[in-house]
């Protein structure tokens, strides 16, 4: 029974994905269909049209194993080993440095602003 439920839940997510892709296509948006579909689901939950309980088993299964679904794309890295064997390795260095900067600076700005807010609340 749980198995059927999970299948139905995932089918519902596919329906939202399909809608998201359709909206992206019709309005020629640069935001991908999966992100639009996520926003649709958020509004459906927020407005109470869809109850969290209705889609619980399937969605929690997907969320628990989120990284699994990115493995096939990641394996695609092997197609580019040649590019990164020579000077191209510097492109990896650039990507890693830039990623470190993004993580550090964005987190730092958010955290500083929160602390200021917390201090203001005390005053």
């Amino acid at each position, binding site marked *: 029974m749980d198995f059927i439920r999970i299948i139905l839940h*995932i089918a519902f*997510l596919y329906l*939202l*994905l399909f809608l998201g892709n359709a909206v992206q296509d019709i309005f020629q948006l*640069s*935001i*991908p*269909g*999966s*992100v639009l*579909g*996520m*926003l649709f*689901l*958020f509004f459906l*939950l927020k407005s109470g049209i869809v109850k*969290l309980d209705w889609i619980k088993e*399937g*969605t*929690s299964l*997907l*969320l628990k*194993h*989120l*990284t*699994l*679904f*990115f*493995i*096939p*794309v*990641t*394996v*695609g*890295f*092997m*197609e580019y080993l040649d*590019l990164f064997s020579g000077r191209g390795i*510097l*492109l*990896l260095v*650039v*990507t890693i440095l*830039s*990623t*470190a*900067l*993004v*993580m*550090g*600076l*964005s*987190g*730092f*700005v*958010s*955290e*500083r*602003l*929160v602390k200021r807010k917390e201090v203001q609340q005390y005053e």
Partner: protein
Amino acid sequence: MNDFIIGIMAVSATLGLYGAALMLYRKKKSPLLQPILVVSATIIIVLLLFRIPYETYMIGGQWIEVLMGPAVIALAIPLYNHYERLKQLAVPILAGILVGAITGVVSGILFAKAFGFERELILALVPKSVTTPVAVSIAETFEGPIPLAAVFVIVAGISGVLMSPFIYKLFRLKHPLGRGIGMGSASHAIGTAAMMEQSELEGSISTIAMVLSAVIVSFIAPILVMLFL
């Protein structure tokens, strides 16, 4: 061998490795043992050793990949669960994400330019901090090399997960907000997925950062490319 058997083999090998890697990760709790990293590296090594092309693996791999879209949609749930808390923090959240989006595009362009890389390759670097489907559509609008753009997205995701303990220490990020925003802005869905395994609150902050930074980057990237490249 027919495609069906190859597909079954690819899927069962991936699932088996994932199960084993997950057990190992839960036991040791080291970011170096992230299942996505361990499993992908193992599969790549095996494929290279036996000279199996990526397309052959993908006969089965695509059956796993089809769940990527629904999984991204399911991220609405942690967002919904933590909405009230996150709403109060709208200003720090938005400011951090905006800084991250600009930093990602500009630093990528400037570093690559400093090393003297050609325009084509630099364009593939621009969308590296955002989730693959968005990065691909950004690369399309620049007419940059699309598969390469997807590769840089993966590198940003995996390297961010690996570096995160160090970056948190370096920038003194102690609050779940700073950590979640940093992870989602820099390492998109891969970082978010890894973070979700540790804490649902940090994971949902990371989800917000990933979604908003995808939207922001797709708007600002064309302008920043014009200014800096």
